Structures are given as structure tokens and as C-alpha cells.
């Protein structure tokens, strides 16, 4: 437990080194971003087909669909998050460098956040069209609730992906660990988005938003502190 991450000036340079590498690899093939986009699109289509929302009900379930679509689209990407590092034991090479583990984690989480947000930006309009939505509440709040929820998803996802890569069937393990822990944040996110879309004013104090922010801070701190332990676990 000597894992206090030392956030020195060089720390952000290190984060940037890792992040640039990830973005470069992704930029070269654009594979995961493209497939994530298409996957998210499919999920939205799938859901609107499976639920056939009538105009009135759509506003009620749209929030849920949006969040669940994000979740599933992200999980497949998160599963791949460390795949490159595992493939040829690159992770072992990284473990042997003297650089800070928390920076590696933070950079990976940032990269994933970037990808998922990109997908959301593209998908948002499609979604509104499919569900005939025009939000009745304060739309600007969406620009807070969604990134906060996404960060909760992505940061936890990156952490638990690192935890589950050691196991034999890791693709299956990640959602099993991630979903239960992410559930509270998902609920807050769904309810937050719902309040905004329906504009029913049921949440004047932005309780859901605060809850999400609290969740983010709490879990982020825990992740940064514990990542070294996870990475170095034999």
C-alpha cells in the first residue's frame, strides 16, 4: 500500500505521453471508434424496435435507452482497453519502467472518455430524431449530467478492465464486475436525464447531478490510489 500517486509537474507530461500513444494507435486504424459508433447506433435501433415507443411513453424510456446504449457501446470498447497491452506482454514491459502507474490509468481513462464522448456527440441527434424528442427541461444540464455519468462509467471501466485482464476469460468478467458497481451511477444518470427530458421539475436542487459528481470523486480517488496495487499484483 505504498501506492500514493505522486502528482508532480512531470505527472501530466507522463499522462500526455500515454494518451498520445493511445490516440495515435487508434487514429491509425480508427477501428474501435468506428465499430463503437456503429454498435451504439445498432443498439438505439434495436431498442426502438424492441420497445416501439408511442410518442407519450417515449419520453419516459428515452433516458434509459440512451444510458444503456452508452453503457453497452462502452463495455465492448473498455474490454479492448488493455488488450493491446496484454497481447504481447507489453504490460510487463510497462510494469518494469519506473514511471507512475496512476498516470497510466488516468491516461487510459481519458482516452476512453474521449472515444465514448465522441460517440455520444454523433449519436445524440440520431437519438432525438428516432424518439421524436424535444426536451422540455433545461437542456444545458444534459451537458453536465452526461459527461459526469460517462466519466463514472469510463473511469471504473478502465480500472476494472485492468483488474480482470489477469483472469482467463476476461471479456466476460469485466461487465460482471463493472455493472454492479456502476449501477448507482447509472441510476443517477438515467433519472437525471429523465428529469431534463420530461421537464417535470421533480429535481429542483439538482440532486442527481450532485450525486453523480460525488460518485465520480469518490471512485476516482479510490481508483488512483489502488491502481498501482492492481498493476503490480503478480
Amino acid at each position, binding site marked *: 500500500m505504498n501506492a500514493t500517486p*505522486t502528482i508532480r509537474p*512531470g505527472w501530466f507530461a*507522463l499522462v500526455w*505521453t500515454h494518451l498520445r*500513444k493511445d490516440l*495515435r*494507435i487508434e487514429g*491509425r*486504424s480508427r477501428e474501435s471508434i468506428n465499430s463503437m459508433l456503429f454498435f451504439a447506433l445498432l443498439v438505439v435501433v434495436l431498442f426502438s424496435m424492441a420497445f416501439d415507443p408511442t410518442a407519450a411513453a417515449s419520453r419516459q424510456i428515452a433516458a434509459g435507452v440512451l444510458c444503456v446504449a452508452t453503457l453497452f457501446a462502452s463495455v465492448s470498447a473498455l474490454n479492448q482497453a488493455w488488450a*493491446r497491452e496484454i*497481447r*504481447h*506482454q*507489453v504490460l*510487463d*514491459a*510497462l*510494469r*518494469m*519502467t*519506473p*514511471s*507512475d502507474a496512476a498516470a497510466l490509468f488516468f491516461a487510459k481513462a481519458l482516452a476512453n472518455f474521449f472515444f465514448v464522448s465522441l460517440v455520444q456527440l454523433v449519436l445524440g441527434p440520431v437519438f432525438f430524431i428516432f424518439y421524436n424528442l424535444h426536451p422540455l427541461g433545461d437542456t444545458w444540464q444534459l451537458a453536465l449530467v452526461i459527461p459526469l455519468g460517462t466519466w463514472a462509467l469510463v473511469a471504473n471501466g478502465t480500472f476494472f478492465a485492468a483488474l480482470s485482464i489477469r483472469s482467463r476469460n476476461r471479456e466476460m468478467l469485466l461487465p460482471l464486475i463493472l455493472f454492479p458497481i456502476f449501477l448507482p451511477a447509472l441510476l443517477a444518470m438515467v433519472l437525471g436525464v429523465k428529469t431534463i427530458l420530461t421537464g417535470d421539475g421533480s429535481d429542483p436542487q439538482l440532486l442527481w447531478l450532485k450525486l453523480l459528481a460525488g460518485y465520480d470523486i469518490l471512485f476516482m480517488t479510490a481508483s488512483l490510489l489502488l491502481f498501482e496495487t492492481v498493476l*503490480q499484483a*503478480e
Partner: protein
Amino acid sequence: MTPAAQDLPASTSSEPVARIQSVSRLFGDFAALRNVTLDLEPGKCYVLLGENGAGKSTLLRILAGLLLPSHGAITLFGNSTPTESRARIGYMSHAPMLYDELTALENLRYFRSLYSGQPTLAPEEALAQVGLDPALSRSLGQYSQGMRQRASLARVLLSQPELLLLDEPFSNMDVESAHQMVSLLARFRAGRRTRDPRRTIVLTTHQRSLATPIADCVLTLKAGRLVAREEGTLS
């Protein structure tokens, strides 16, 4: 975290680089290493021989701090927590330990920036040393087996480690390249002086003849036990 290599007093040759004290390693109830005791003296080159499954790779991974011994203790550079000394160790395994999607040069640049505060080779220099063209634009995933192995060696040389652990570095190389590698290792060990006490090498191989030119000491493992030790001639 780890002090940069040059700040350290050069280890005097009396003090071992690594001290392995009755180390055993189990996988489940199978003993891959049994009660191995060994001191690695600075500046020497050790060659590990042994049949398949003798435990050579396991021993190297333990020295690299990537695997913990089940019993026994290991001290690296006078330090008993292996993670602290890792920056001073270079480990090359069967796998390339590099990103498939990047070129060799990009891979090396990335790794170099993780060794900040420590003297490193220039990536181009490291590639040239192992005989790869730094300008090669193909990404590593498209290299042949042997080219990957060279790139992997370049990664290890980059940080100019004091302890170099090589797991079958010649296994997929053609004879010509293998000889080049051996002389490269010989030059590496010599450092700037005739014999640098801060360059210790441990390598495993099945081709004993290849390694003889640089071997100072040949160790033989058998079913997890260290059964023989021959001091070679100093080159």
C-alpha cells in the same frame, strides 16, 4: 521513485547484483523452481541451460520482479523489494513486449519517455545496434518472428540496464544474426571501459555453442533445481 542510475555509487564487484536465497516457486502444487540459491556478480554473463520445463523462464521472471517467489528471498541491488529496482533491469521474454500497431521506432520513443530521469540510448541508436532500419515504416505486427525479437532487444537496450535478462534471445534468429547479437551483447557488457561492473547479463538458450563467446558462468537447471555451475573462461 527509483533514483536515477547514475546517482548511485557504482557497485563494487564484491557486492552481488542479485542474491537469490533458497527461492522456490510453485504453480498450484507443481514446483517449477526448487530451493535455488545463487549470487549474480556484477559484470558477469551467466548462461542458463536446462531441458524444457526446467524452470529457466520462471527464474528469469522472478529476477525481473514480475513473479514473486513462493518461498525464499530475493535481493536486487541490495534492495529486497523487487519493484524498487525494476528500472535498472532489462527483461526480454519470448513475447516481443511491444505494440503491434506502432513501428519499432514509435514503440521505442514511447518507452524512452517512460524512463525519464535516467540516461537512455536514442531510439534510433538502439535500433541501429540490433540491425533494424529505424526508418522502416511497417508496424511491428507485420514483422517476421526474428525481426520482432530484434526490436524487443532494442527496447531492452534502450534503458541501458545494469542487469539484462534475456529469455532465449536467439531462438528464432538465423545463425548470422545470432552471432551478431552475441557480439552486440559483448560490446554492451564492455560498456565504455573494458569491463563495466554495471553490466550483468543472464540469458537462457538451448544453443550452448552460440553463447560460449561471452559466457563467464554456465548454470544448469534440472527439474527446478540448480544442478551444475561451470565457470567459463573470461573472454
